[in-house]
């Protein structure tokens, strides 16, 4: 689904992303790991379109999206979250998700019927909330949610947009350890393996092992390993990068 070839990004003299190439297929959940400053967030920004690369290509669903602006990539099915959750604070949890469903169905501009009367859309929104274990909170405002639930809501909204590729930048950061696994469980279960894929930036190795199919290890802008977590973690260089100096 996603093919990244020889991606390069410089910030002045500093090369943040150095000839990065990899692929993500449908149904894969790939984690992106590496020490701080390795270029993980930059890479995510390049794929989501918030930064343009200096060299290289990004192919998504067989289209060259290298120069596409973010909103065009969103329409094509790339969705991302941000480290600070971006929700609609004065709308209910249900409305937060429902707006996404309205939008993707092209109904968001309609003004002559109350949104509650749109049965199909509302039940779809409820179904999504159920998938993400948020259905009991549907009438709440985001402020009343726990940090973990807010993160999940954020991702539920991306899911509601029927995105094909989810880019998740540290989805469990700021969440209590006990909730981390619940959240990852929810997210990974919700991903419809037949149509979607996800790339998750993570620091927690337990999560990488338990929930992701493949791991990309990034150091100083270069991919130094790409494979199944068990195999990759056995390489001494990888272990040094992640757990030794610079980790």
């Amino acid at each position, binding site marked *: 689904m996603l093919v990244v070839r020889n991606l390069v990004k410089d910030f002045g003299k500093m090369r943040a992303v150095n000839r990065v190439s990899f692929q993500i297929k449908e149904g894969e959940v790939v984690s992106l790991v590496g020490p701080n400053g390795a270029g993980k967030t930059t890479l995510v920004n390049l794929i989501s379109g918030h930064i343009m690369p200096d060299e290289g290509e990004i192919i998504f669903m067989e289209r060259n999206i290298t120069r596409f602006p*973010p*909103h065009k990539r*969103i*329409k094509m099915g790339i*969705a991302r979250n941000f480290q600070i959750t*971006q*929700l*609609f*604070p*004065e*709308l209910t949890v249900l*409305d937060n998700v*429902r*707006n*996404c469903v*309205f*939008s*993707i169905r092209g*109904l*968001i*501009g*309609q*003004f*002559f*019927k*109350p*949104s*509650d009367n*749109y049965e199909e859309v509302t039940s779809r929104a409820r179904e999504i909330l159920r998938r993400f274990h948020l259905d009991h909170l549907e009438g709440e405002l985001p402020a009343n949610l726990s940090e973990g639930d807010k993160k999940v809501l954020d991702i539920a*909204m991306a899911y509601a*947009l029927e995105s094909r590729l989810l880019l998740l930048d540290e989805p469990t950061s700021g969440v209590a350890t006990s909730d981390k696994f619940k959240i990852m469980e929810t997210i990974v279960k919700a991903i419809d393996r037949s149509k979607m894929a996800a790339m998750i930036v993570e620091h927690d190795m337990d999560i990488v092992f338990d929930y992701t199919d493949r791991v990309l290890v990034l150091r100083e802008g270069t991919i130094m390993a790409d494979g199944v977590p068990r195999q990759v973690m056995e390489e001494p260089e990888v272990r040094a990068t992640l757990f030794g100096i610079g980790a």
Partner: protein
Amino acid sequence: MAGLATKRKKTGALVLLIIGFVLLPQVIPSYQLVLLESGLCFAILGLGFNLLLRYTGLLSFGHGAYFAAGAYAVGMIGRYAPELYRMEVLIPAAIVFSAILAAIFGFVCVRHTRIFFSILTLALSMLVFATLVKLYYVTGGSDGIRVGIPPVLGHAFKGMRRPQFLEGFYYYFLLGWVIVSVAFMYLLVRSPFGKAIQAVRDNEIRAEMIGIRVKRFRWWAFLVSGAYAGLAGGLWSFVNGHVTPELAHWVFSGEVVYMTLLGGFKSFAGPIVGAIVFTFLKLYAVSGTEYWMLIIGITLIGIVLLLPGGLVGGLVILLERAKARAPWRS
């Protein structure tokens, strides 16, 4: 089920309210009825204004421009195209004329937010004001234009004086428009469009990310808001009998903001309540004392400092306190 019961109660209360309004002319003296009619026009204005403020998150400090557009549409037709001077032409003209103005002004305004938006709306309405004053040979200048009683659907109110007209037919006509405006706005803010503009208000970036075209939705809200103001202006022109450039001055727009906050801008009914209360408050202040600006100024400061939720907000707080004290009544 609880949901259905409250819905029935609410509908019942609403029906009673409407019946109350319909029967009002029998009960209150005519000068108060005329004042109420003024208040009802401002209620429509406030409803439109609050679509922008509360639901889209944009503070327009120049909404008088669209009110003036509607009012002057009526006045100008009366002056320059008297053969078209019929209610069935005048009200649509007021709406269309103000909507066009709002469309043009809105196009430039929605590209900015917060203080720049407010300042821009203020400057635009002062531009309208200055034009209305200076082009006196077209617009009547600071003297304004007289507005007479138009025929409605062929029926000319021959020989009827204005107070009679306002007590009779016009009250119910206006009430009808109020009901239509309220109903339409109610539907609008609950529709997907309404939810979309609230999303834009809450988080512009995220809204764009989920596929809502922020500028376009803001523009539509601006347009509807302006059309409401124009309708209100057109309807008001008959109540006042006279339209002047002051309607486009920023002070009048400031009063619009005031009445909305007085009623409470966080609630749907707030602007309606605020408009009616303000109209009466202003008249009693003006007729009661030479220093009415002092009264209005102090009440304004009081509202901002002590009762930010406005009258409706305050009422809600009172009701909740009462509920908390009497938990057996739910």
